[in-house]
Protein backbone atom coordinates (compact mmCIF):
# COMPACT_ATOMS: atom_id res chain seq x y z
CA UNK A 1 0.00 0.00 0.00
CA UNK A 2 1.31 3.42 -0.87
CA UNK A 3 0.70 5.96 1.84
CA UNK A 4 0.81 9.70 1.24
CA UNK A 5 2.99 10.28 4.27
CA UNK A 6 5.48 7.69 3.08
CA UNK A 7 5.71 9.31 -0.32
CA UNK A 8 6.46 12.64 1.37
CA UNK A 9 9.41 11.07 3.19
CA UNK A 10 7.81 11.10 6.62
CA UNK A 11 8.12 8.28 9.07
CA UNK A 12 5.05 6.60 10.51
CA UNK A 13 5.98 8.01 13.88
CA UNK A 14 6.00 11.54 12.51
CA UNK A 15 2.70 10.93 10.74
CA UNK A 16 1.10 9.83 13.99
CA UNK A 17 2.50 12.86 15.78
CA UNK A 18 1.00 15.21 13.19
CA UNK A 19 -2.35 13.46 13.36
CA UNK A 20 -2.34 13.64 17.17
CA UNK A 21 -1.35 17.31 17.09
CA UNK A 22 -4.21 18.31 14.83
CA UNK A 23 -6.65 16.32 16.95
CA UNK A 24 -5.46 18.05 20.12
CA UNK A 25 -5.81 21.46 18.54
CA UNK A 26 -9.40 20.74 17.51
CA UNK A 27 -10.63 20.19 21.03
CA UNK A 28 -12.70 22.51 23.15
CA UNK A 29 -10.84 24.93 25.37
CA UNK A 30 -10.76 22.86 28.58
CA UNK A 31 -9.54 19.47 27.33
CA UNK A 32 -7.35 21.18 24.72
CA UNK A 33 -5.17 23.03 27.20
CA UNK A 34 -4.63 19.81 29.09
CA UNK A 35 -3.94 17.77 25.98
CA UNK A 36 -1.58 20.18 24.27
CA UNK A 37 0.91 19.85 27.07
CA UNK A 38 1.34 16.22 26.03
CA UNK A 39 2.45 17.21 22.53
CA UNK A 40 5.38 19.27 23.66
CA UNK A 41 8.84 17.85 23.37
CA UNK A 42 11.95 19.73 24.37
CA UNK A 43 14.80 17.36 23.92
CA UNK A 44 18.16 18.75 22.86
CA UNK A 45 21.35 17.05 21.85
CA UNK A 46 24.90 17.92 20.88
CA UNK A 47 27.44 15.96 18.92
CA UNK A 48 30.86 15.61 20.47
CA UNK A 49 33.83 15.63 18.12
CA UNK A 50 37.53 15.62 18.98
CA UNK A 51 36.80 16.17 22.64
CA UNK A 52 34.68 19.23 22.02
CA UNK A 53 30.96 19.67 22.35
CA UNK A 54 29.26 20.64 19.13
CA UNK A 55 26.26 22.82 18.58
CA UNK A 56 23.26 22.32 20.84
CA UNK A 57 20.33 21.30 18.64
CA UNK A 58 16.68 20.52 19.21
CA UNK A 59 15.95 16.88 18.48
CA UNK A 60 12.57 17.63 16.94
CA UNK A 61 13.98 20.20 14.51
CA UNK A 62 16.90 17.93 13.60
CA UNK A 63 14.50 15.08 12.93
CA UNK A 64 12.38 17.24 10.63
CA UNK A 65 15.47 18.34 8.72
CA UNK A 66 16.66 14.76 8.33
CA UNK A 67 13.28 13.68 7.00
CA UNK A 68 13.16 16.54 4.51
CA UNK A 69 16.64 15.59 3.31
CA UNK A 70 15.58 11.97 2.92
CA UNK A 71 12.54 13.01 0.91
CA UNK A 72 14.59 15.08 -1.53
CA UNK A 73 17.12 12.26 -1.89
CA UNK A 74 14.39 9.80 -2.74
CA UNK A 75 12.80 12.19 -5.21
CA UNK A 76 16.02 12.33 -7.22
Amino acid sequence: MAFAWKAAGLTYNRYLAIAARVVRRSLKEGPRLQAERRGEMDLRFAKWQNGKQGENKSLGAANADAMAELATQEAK
Partner: protein
Amino acid sequence: MSALRLSRAALRARTAAALKPIQRRGYAEAVSDKIKLSLALPHQAIYHSQDVVQVNLPAESGEMGILAQHVPSIEQLKPGLVEIIEESGGNKQFFLSGGFAVVQPNSVLSINAVEGFPLEEFSEEAVKSQISEAQKIASGSGSEQDIAEAKIELEVIKPPLRGGVG
Protein backbone atom coordinates in the same frame (compact mmCIF):
# COMPACT_ATOMS: atom_id res chain seq x y z
CA MET B 1 -38.74 -59.57 41.68
CA SER B 2 -35.83 -57.29 42.42
CA ALA B 3 -34.99 -57.08 38.70
CA LEU B 4 -38.52 -55.87 38.01
CA ARG B 5 -38.24 -53.20 40.66
CA LEU B 6 -34.95 -52.05 39.16
CA SER B 7 -36.37 -51.67 35.67
CA ARG B 8 -39.34 -49.78 37.01
CA ALA B 9 -37.00 -47.39 38.75
CA ALA B 10 -35.07 -46.94 35.52
CA LEU B 11 -38.30 -46.27 33.64
CA ARG B 12 -39.31 -43.67 36.16
CA ALA B 13 -35.94 -41.98 35.86
CA ARG B 14 -36.20 -41.88 32.09
CA THR B 15 -39.62 -40.28 32.06
CA ALA B 16 -38.47 -37.66 34.54
CA ALA B 17 -35.55 -36.81 32.27
CA ALA B 18 -37.84 -36.62 29.25
CA LEU B 19 -40.23 -34.26 30.98
CA LYS B 20 -37.52 -31.81 31.96
CA PRO B 21 -36.16 -29.72 29.07
CA ILE B 22 -32.45 -30.19 28.55
CA GLN B 23 -30.71 -27.04 29.72
CA ARG B 24 -27.68 -26.44 27.59
CA ARG B 25 -27.21 -22.75 28.20
CA GLY B 26 -24.45 -22.35 30.74
CA TYR B 27 -22.74 -19.33 32.13
CA ALA B 28 -19.71 -19.61 29.88
CA GLU B 29 -21.82 -19.69 26.75
CA ALA B 30 -23.90 -16.70 27.75
CA VAL B 31 -20.77 -14.62 28.20
CA SER B 32 -19.04 -15.56 24.97
CA ASP B 33 -21.05 -13.23 22.72
CA LYS B 34 -19.19 -10.22 24.14
CA ILE B 35 -15.80 -8.79 23.25
CA LYS B 36 -13.34 -7.79 25.88
CA LEU B 37 -12.27 -4.36 24.71
CA SER B 38 -9.20 -2.45 25.81
CA LEU B 39 -8.84 1.02 24.35
CA ALA B 40 -5.55 2.49 25.49
CA LEU B 41 -3.80 5.80 24.90
CA PRO B 42 -0.26 6.45 26.14
CA HIS B 43 -1.62 8.50 29.03
CA GLN B 44 -4.98 6.90 29.74
CA ALA B 45 -6.95 3.67 29.38
CA ILE B 46 -10.46 4.51 28.21
CA TYR B 47 -11.62 0.87 28.29
CA HIS B 48 -9.89 -1.69 30.41
CA SER B 49 -10.92 -5.17 29.19
CA GLN B 50 -14.56 -4.29 29.42
CA ASP B 51 -17.29 -6.42 27.86
CA VAL B 52 -18.88 -4.78 24.83
CA VAL B 53 -21.13 -6.09 22.07
CA GLN B 54 -19.60 -4.61 18.94
CA VAL B 55 -16.83 -2.25 17.88
CA ASN B 56 -16.75 -0.47 14.53
CA LEU B 57 -13.25 0.46 13.39
CA PRO B 58 -11.95 2.76 10.65
CA ALA B 59 -9.25 0.38 9.43
CA GLU B 60 -6.82 1.31 6.67
CA SER B 61 -8.32 -1.57 4.65
CA GLY B 62 -11.85 -0.25 5.12
CA GLU B 63 -14.53 0.21 7.76
CA MET B 64 -15.04 -2.92 9.78
CA GLY B 65 -17.26 -4.11 12.59
CA ILE B 66 -15.83 -6.48 15.18
CA LEU B 67 -18.12 -8.90 16.97
CA ALA B 68 -17.32 -11.71 19.35
CA GLN B 69 -15.31 -14.65 17.97
CA HIS B 70 -13.76 -12.52 15.24
CA VAL B 71 -10.83 -13.97 13.33
CA PRO B 72 -7.57 -12.81 14.94
CA SER B 73 -6.06 -9.96 12.95
CA ILE B 74 -4.03 -6.78 13.17
CA GLU B 75 -5.42 -3.66 11.56
CA GLN B 76 -3.83 -0.27 11.06
CA LEU B 77 -6.37 2.42 11.86
CA LYS B 78 -7.02 5.58 9.93
CA PRO B 79 -7.68 8.67 11.99
CA GLY B 80 -11.42 8.44 12.49
CA LEU B 81 -14.40 7.47 14.54
CA VAL B 82 -14.49 4.31 16.58
CA GLU B 83 -17.99 3.28 17.54
CA ILE B 84 -18.48 1.07 20.56
CA ILE B 85 -21.80 -0.64 21.20
CA GLU B 86 -21.95 -1.43 24.88
CA GLU B 87 -23.72 -4.18 26.77
CA SER B 88 -26.48 -1.85 27.88
CA GLY B 89 -27.26 -1.10 24.23
CA GLY B 90 -25.91 2.44 24.25
CA ASN B 91 -23.14 3.35 21.85
CA LYS B 92 -20.18 5.61 22.32
CA GLN B 93 -18.09 7.33 19.70
CA PHE B 94 -14.46 8.25 20.04
CA PHE B 95 -12.29 10.03 17.53
CA LEU B 96 -8.86 8.39 17.43
CA SER B 97 -5.87 9.99 15.77
CA GLY B 98 -4.71 6.72 14.23
CA GLY B 99 -3.07 3.62 15.63
CA PHE B 100 -3.56 -0.11 15.64
CA ALA B 101 -6.30 -2.55 16.54
CA VAL B 102 -5.34 -6.09 17.45
CA VAL B 103 -8.02 -8.77 17.46
CA GLN B 104 -6.79 -11.59 19.64
CA PRO B 105 -8.30 -15.07 19.90
CA ASN B 106 -11.13 -15.62 22.42
CA SER B 107 -12.83 -12.29 21.67
CA VAL B 108 -10.18 -9.97 23.00
CA LEU B 109 -9.73 -6.66 21.20
CA SER B 110 -6.99 -4.15 21.97
CA ILE B 111 -6.95 -0.73 20.36
CA ASN B 112 -3.94 1.54 20.68
CA ALA B 113 -3.92 5.16 19.59
CA VAL B 114 -1.98 8.31 20.30
CA GLU B 115 -4.96 10.55 21.02
CA GLY B 116 -8.61 9.70 21.42
CA PHE B 117 -11.50 11.82 22.61
CA PRO B 118 -15.26 11.55 22.70
CA LEU B 119 -16.90 13.57 19.96
CA GLU B 120 -18.46 16.03 22.41
CA GLU B 121 -15.03 17.32 23.33
CA PHE B 122 -14.31 18.69 19.86
CA SER B 123 -15.03 22.31 19.12
CA GLU B 124 -16.57 23.20 15.81
CA GLU B 125 -14.74 26.53 15.55
CA ALA B 126 -11.39 24.96 16.35
CA VAL B 127 -11.93 22.34 13.64
CA LYS B 128 -12.89 25.00 11.10
CA SER B 129 -9.90 27.20 11.91
CA GLN B 130 -7.60 24.16 11.68
CA ILE B 131 -8.99 23.32 8.26
CA SER B 132 -8.58 26.83 6.89
CA GLU B 133 -5.09 27.13 8.30
CA ALA B 134 -4.00 23.79 6.86
CA GLN B 135 -5.52 24.68 3.49
CA LYS B 136 -3.53 27.89 3.46
CA ILE B 137 -0.28 26.05 4.09
CA ALA B 138 -1.10 23.25 1.65
CA SER B 139 -1.68 25.67 -1.21
CA GLY B 140 1.08 28.06 -0.15
CA SER B 141 4.73 28.07 -1.09
CA GLY B 142 6.25 26.61 2.07
CA SER B 143 8.75 23.76 2.15
CA GLU B 144 7.77 20.42 0.74
CA GLN B 145 7.58 19.01 4.23
CA ASP B 146 5.25 21.73 5.51
CA ILE B 147 2.93 21.10 2.59
CA ALA B 148 2.99 17.35 3.20
CA GLU B 149 2.20 17.88 6.88
CA ALA B 150 -0.64 20.27 6.08
CA LYS B 151 -2.08 17.71 3.68
CA ILE B 152 -1.97 15.07 6.38
CA GLU B 153 -3.71 17.44 8.78
CA LEU B 154 -6.46 18.05 6.24
CA GLU B 155 -6.86 14.35 5.66
CA VAL B 156 -7.11 13.69 9.38
CA ILE B 157 -9.52 16.42 10.24
CA LYS B 158 -11.66 16.86 7.20
CA PRO B 159 -14.04 14.04 6.44
CA PRO B 160 -14.67 12.43 9.81
CA LEU B 161 -14.65 15.46 12.07
CA ARG B 162 -16.59 17.70 9.77
CA GLY B 163 -19.23 15.01 9.49
CA GLY B 164 -19.27 14.40 13.21
CA VAL B 165 -19.06 17.88 14.65
CA GLY B 166 -20.39 20.38 12.20
